[in-house]
């Protein structure tokens, strides 16, 4: 088996592979449809508040009518439990199983790329999508908020205000936090994707796991388990909207996601390294 390992290919080739993977991913109509659906979330929130303002609902909703920039935060809060894991499940579940179902996996492995390199490139593609998805939500929120409502300095959770430039920095940090939060789920999706040649099955399994983790996180009887669930810190992004920023959850979240990446990445390797590629 060790002979199937890659003969250290020049890094340029790996970047070429990553480039082609990204261009395939972001040229797909499905990817654009998912990003458009994510952009629709803050747009609908903004329109709904414009028509009829309400104080009960997702966090930051009450602040929208005073400051349109809050549409982006509300959009992110609404997307995190369902829409973002859904799209990540589709992208990560498709990584290996999609190629297998199309019959293109063996051609990819004929080229001297090696299976490890292919896994890494596939995972990197999913990670780039995990960063693009929250960015789209935030940008669409800022756009629709600026269109429908007055915008101005943003009141943080601590009551102090930051200007537009401070808001931009915090928004980028938020996107990074959410992207890191989704890396663990992406790793699970990658592993599930190596188990099957039916991409829909891998996607569904990943999404179901994301929902199950969040349900377990609400049960007080299982509180010993909560810090180990990959979804536990998903809402910790609010700690970046405090003044001073509470970095604890950022570090804990990154460490937790790193554990998931190492474990499920290892499982994916164990499964994929010796798998018979029949299609």
């Amino acid at each position, binding site marked *: 088996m060790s002979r199937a390992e890659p003969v250290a290919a020049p890094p340029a080739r790996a970047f070429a592979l990553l480039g082609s993977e990204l261009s395939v991913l972001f040229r797909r109509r499905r990817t654009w449809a998912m990003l458009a659906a994510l952009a629709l979330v803050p747009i609908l929130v903004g329109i709904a508040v414009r028509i009829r303002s309400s104080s009960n609902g997702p966090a930051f909703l009450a602040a929208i009518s*005073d400051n349109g920039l809050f549409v982006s935060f509300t959009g992110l809060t609404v997307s995190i439990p369902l829409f973002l894991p859904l799209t990540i499940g589709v992208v990560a579940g498709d990584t290996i199983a999609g190629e297998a179902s199309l019959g293109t996996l063996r051609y990819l492995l004929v080229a001297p790329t090696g299976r490890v390199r292919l896994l890494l490139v596939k995972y990197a593609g999913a990670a780039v999508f995990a960063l693009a998805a929250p960015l789209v939500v935030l940008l669409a929120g800022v756009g629709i908020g600026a269109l429908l409502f007055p915008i101005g300095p943003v009141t943080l959770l601590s009551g102090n205000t930051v200007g537009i430039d401070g808001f931009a920095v915090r928004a980028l940090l938020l996107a990074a936090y959410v992207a890191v939060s989704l890396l663990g789920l992406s790793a699970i999706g990658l592993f599930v994707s190596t188990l099957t040649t039916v991409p829909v099955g891998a996607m569904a399994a990943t999404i179901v796991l994301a929902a199950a983790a969040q349900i377990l996180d609400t049960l007080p009887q299982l509180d010993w388990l909560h810090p180990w669930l990959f979804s536990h810190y998903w*809402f910790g992004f609010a700690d970046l909207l405090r003044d*001073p920023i509470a970095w604890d959850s950022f570090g804990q979240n990154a460490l937790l996601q790193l*554990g998931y990446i190492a474990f499920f990445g290892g499982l994916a390797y*164990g499964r994929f390294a010796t798998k018979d590629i029949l299609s």
Partner: protein
Amino acid sequence: MNKVSRWLPAAIPAAVIAAAALGVPAFGSAAGARLPEKSADEVLALIAGSSATRFSGTVEQSSDLGLPELPKSARGYSSGADSTSAVLELLTADHTAQVFVDGAERERVQVLDDLAERDLYRNGSDVWIYDSKQRAAHHVVLPEGSGAAPQLSATPAELAEKLLAAVDPTTEVDVATGSVAGRPVYELVLTPKSDDTLVGSVTVSVDSDTGLPLEVAVTARGQSTDAVRVGFTSIDFSAPPADTFTFTPSADTRVTEEELPSGPPEGYAAPDLPSPTVTGAGWDTVVALPVDVLGSAGSSSALLAQLTTPVAEGRALQTSLVSVLFTADGRLLAGAVPVEALEAAAR
């Protein structure tokens, strides 16, 4: 490559995570082993002579009072202002706060809620209280030279003072060593001599270096986990940045200017407040108030019916530390004793 070794990349992180999860607590408890022995008096003197006037840290509060735990409502959604569920949340849920102190006149407490925050700012005579859910701020100007500020939640130092004031012949005091927030501490363990109270022991953990109380934990009799615990999980003894203590309300914040009562604090007590009857002493104290809870709430209060159980004298609320009895003849009895003791006091 054989069948086993291909799983190594998955097995190694799993082993490292398991080792870290099991090994870290054991490492933490070993840190306090090398402290010189001190008597209870010396530990109290250490607290009194505490040199820590500036620090910042994270404080965690957890309660396990034996009340039914409620599943969290969907996170990030506010369910309107419901005071009873807020009280229940305070009793059953855990809270995290960041505390910043710089001298006696500059304080900041940041209570970190899910997607929300409550804040206390004190900068000299200016005190601001901010609630992000209400987007409302309260502003108080303290008179010059006033010492203690109103607090959102008790810091360990404050709780320790209150508890140590209660040390009297009813209590046994021991000293142990341990570790809190990665720092070696002396643990002042207060154990009631009475057998009738629900309180098992009260532990005050004092930083061995600065004398700052870092943690207060109360255990209930017959319960393995702490009933109430307030303590630092991390602490840093350098001066916090000055802008931590300043607050400027934004244009869309509702600001309420509060007036401090000009008279002495004793005049604060409303004249029609019923005076309590106290029976028993020390840990077994039972306080009785002529408040007709059952009569005023009636049978309509579903929450009261859910939390309390019917007993011969009325309805009783039993937590692992405190019992409350609402009698049918319009009295409220409370104490850190079992319900049976309250019933005996009610007769």
